[in-house]
């Protein structure tokens, strides 16, 4: 057991000067068999970006089809597959692993001041489980039609029995990727509990850690319910066990309950890490301690706990007792409280802060605006009477895109810009980054404000065809999607250019007091040359020395041009 870990662990003291996790071992094999959390994080990052590209192409195809009523570029059958794949790929292959598995893997141990996660080999195993699940999802796309929507509602999803049913493959893929998510969650919780550096007590924990920790709790407690649900769906397809299929005495609404018992907490698996990144960005670029630190931390935990009690709000029109619906509606309103606590605390942090608007901060500020819109429109959906009108319209689509894209994706992009210099050791063109941000921000809003309007006017979601009155709004929504696409192209170019010819990054280009910035860029294979002792919190700017703010902890001190540039 330890032999293998030692084989891949380089000698700490005799590392050559300037060795980092990218260069201390070379070759494809050293990457594929690595147990270094940083390399695993990078591999996840590449995987989720591929997932994002795929999901994005599906989205553009859907929007192009909807430019005009009737058939534009594809048949109704193909269209059904396109929106299903857009949803399933974006959720299971991109958003769920995006921040926790990619950025979380890279930065959680660094922020804890430790060498690695508690179970490094399990970490690598979860990556391969994820890849295996992703390949199965690909098989599903190739072998047949996955056209049930990403929710796989019965009885639609059990209409063709046997292995020719592509839904079967897709649900297996979801089952397997779910285990990758569970194992990552187990790993992170154990790491946060047992691996913190000396001096890093719970009240000093970076808010990124608190957010990822709360996410991990949901991953461990909710994902297994999805696992058993899709396993039952799988057996329903193969064996006809009669649990969900009404023709065999089963109950399709039971499937919805099971599915949403996971999938509602899952939207907090998606948004909590976004909030986690947001806290880091806001603190760094306001150069001050997060206002109400303990409230922000505990609101993550509160959101995680409440998330288990609100799944029924997806089913107000599915045939549920109206008293249950009232309870679920009330509980859903509760989620707004901890979410608002976060928003107010971030805004209060900005107040009196010394704000520098760099590209990560542009995403940070966008997050506050867009997530507020997403959150507030959620309240009108949680209200029973308005939900009857808005249920299954584009209003819902716009609402969850404002939280998932306006929240999580924007935070993910912000985090990517923020930590890019640390991960790659390269700077990027700030000018291009801001241009890309502009296109993303404008494109996103144009796309989804149009959808809010047509949803409130009654345009149902998932429809292939529509009445002429919705055409201008569909057109502007699609136009926004293209602008968004251009933004991502510019961003892709900007990051590739940075990789090829970017300027060398200093250890701490943003002057952050955060622990992860106290290492070299890119980090030492063991994160820090010596195990650090935390004498202050991650946001204690008055306690951080000049050296820490620009060059990292003294033992990692390397002369750099950072001061001159500052």
């Amino acid at each position, binding site marked *: 057991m330890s032999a293998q*870990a030692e084989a891949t662990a380089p000698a700490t003291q005799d590392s050559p000067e300037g060795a980092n996790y990218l260069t201390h071992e070379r070759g494809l094999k050293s990457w594929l068999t690595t147990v270094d959390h940083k390399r695993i994080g990078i591999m996840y990052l590449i995987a989720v970006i591929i997932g994002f590209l795929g999901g994005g192409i599906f989205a553009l195809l859907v929007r192009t089809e909807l430019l005009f009523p009737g058939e534009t570029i594809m048949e109704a059958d193909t269209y059904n597959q396109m929106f299903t794949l857009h949803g399933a790929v974006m959720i299971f292959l991109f958003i769920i692993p995006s921040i926790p598995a990619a950025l979380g893997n890279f930065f959680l141990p660094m922020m804890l001041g430790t060498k690695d996660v508690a179970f490094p080999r399990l970490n690598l195993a979860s990556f391969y489980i994820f890849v295996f699940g992703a390949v199965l999802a690909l098989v599903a796309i190739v072998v047949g039609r996955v056209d049930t929507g990403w929710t796989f509602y019965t009885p639609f999803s059990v209409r063709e029995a046997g292995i020719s049913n592509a839904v079967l493959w897709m649900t297996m893929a979801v089952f397997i990727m779910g285990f990758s998510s569970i194992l990552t969650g187990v790993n992170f919780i154990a790491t946060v509990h*047992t691996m913190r550096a000396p001096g890093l007590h719970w009240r000093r924990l970076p808010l990124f850690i608190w957010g990822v920790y709360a996410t991990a709790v949901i991953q*461990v407690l909710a994902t297994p319910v999805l696992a058993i649900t899709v396993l*039952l769906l799988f057996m329903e397809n193969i064996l*006809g066990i*009669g649990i969900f299929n009404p023709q065999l*005495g089963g109950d399709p609404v039971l499937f919805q309950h099971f599915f949403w018992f996971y999938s509602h907490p899952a939207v907090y698996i998606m948004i909590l890490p976004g909030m986690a990144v947001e806290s880091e960005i806001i603190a760094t670029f306001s150069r001050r301690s997060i206002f109400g630190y303990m409230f922000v931390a505990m609101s993550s935990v509160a959101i995680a706990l409440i998330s288990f009690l609100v799944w029924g709000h997806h089913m107000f029109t599915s045939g549920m007792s109206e008293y249950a619906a009232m309870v679920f509606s009330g509980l859903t309103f509760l989620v707004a409280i901890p979410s608002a606590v976060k928003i107010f605390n971030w805004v209060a942090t900005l107040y009196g802060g010394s704000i520098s608007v760099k590209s990560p901060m542009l995403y940070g500020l966008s997050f506050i605006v867009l997530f507020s819109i997403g959150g507030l429109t959620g309240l009108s959906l949680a209200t029973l009477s308005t939900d009857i009108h808005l249920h299954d319209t584009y209003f819902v689509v716009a609402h969850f895109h404002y939280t998932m894209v306006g929240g999580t994706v924007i935070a993910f992009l912000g985090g990517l810009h923020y930590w890019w210099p640390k991960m790659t050791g390269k700077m990027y063109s700030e000018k291009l980054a801001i241009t890309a941000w502009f296109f993303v921000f404008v494109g996103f809003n144009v796309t989804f404000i149009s959808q809010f309007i047509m949803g409130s006017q009654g345009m149902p979601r998932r429809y292939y065809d529509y009445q002429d009155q919705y055409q201008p709004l569909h057109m502007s929504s699609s136009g926004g999607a293209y602008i968004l696409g251009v933004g991502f192209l510019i961003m892709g170019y900007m990051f590739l250019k940075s990789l090829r010819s970017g300027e060398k990054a200093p250890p701490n280009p943003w002057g952050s007091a955060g622990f992860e910035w106290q290492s070299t860029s890119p980090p030492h294979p063991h994160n820090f040359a010596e195990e650090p002792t935390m004498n202050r919190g991650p946001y204690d700017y008055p306690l951080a020395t000049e050296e820490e703010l620009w060059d990292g902890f003294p033992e990692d001190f390397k002369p750099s041009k950072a001061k001159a540039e500052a």
Partner: protein
Amino acid sequence: MAHADHGPKFLQHHFDTPSQQFTAAKLGMWLFLAQEILFFSGLFVAYFIFRSWYPEAFSIGSHLLDWRMGAANTVVLLLSSFTAAMAVRSAQVGDRKATGNYLLLTMVFAAVFMVVKYFEYAHKIHVGFLPGGHFAPTEEGMRELAEAVGTSFHGEGVAYHLRSYFGIYFVMTGIHGLHVLVGIGLMFWLWLKNRRGEFSKEYFTPVDCTALYWHLVDLIWIYLFPLLYLID
């Protein structure tokens, strides 16, 4: 080795002390068990929903199972939990031979459980008590059914919903059985490691964690037995 000064051989490079490594592993295992419980919880919820809908079918269904076999299996699993606990204790005091023997005994009990399960399954399949769409009792099955129904038979409807009972029965015991098989595999792996002398008073984490898993598998059966075999 660069890590010669790092501590005992079993200590992985990213941990500072053996006790930190032990705590992490133990916590990880408990978290894994938490997700196992949530995994089975879906099945238990389905069980209670279907039982509340089709109480008669569930009552008749339980009479179609052989409670003697279920009881025997319960005893066997309880014994195996005891031997698993003894294996941990032997590992803790560094008694290699006893550890190996207790692991072996645990595997034997687990295998007995599976053999009994095999006979139960074979019989159910033989007489056509199959889940959902495959439910088609043979003549022998019909006889058993008539015997089990006794006087409380209320026509076709009840017999129809027996398919839901057997759907639940096969899924729950099947997934539990898979866990038993995984447990046997883990015990065998431990047994090999123990034979190579990898465990000591200082390092017995895998034995401890596997035993935790085994107790959970046992515990789930303790719920399955009355819920499936002993309905009224």
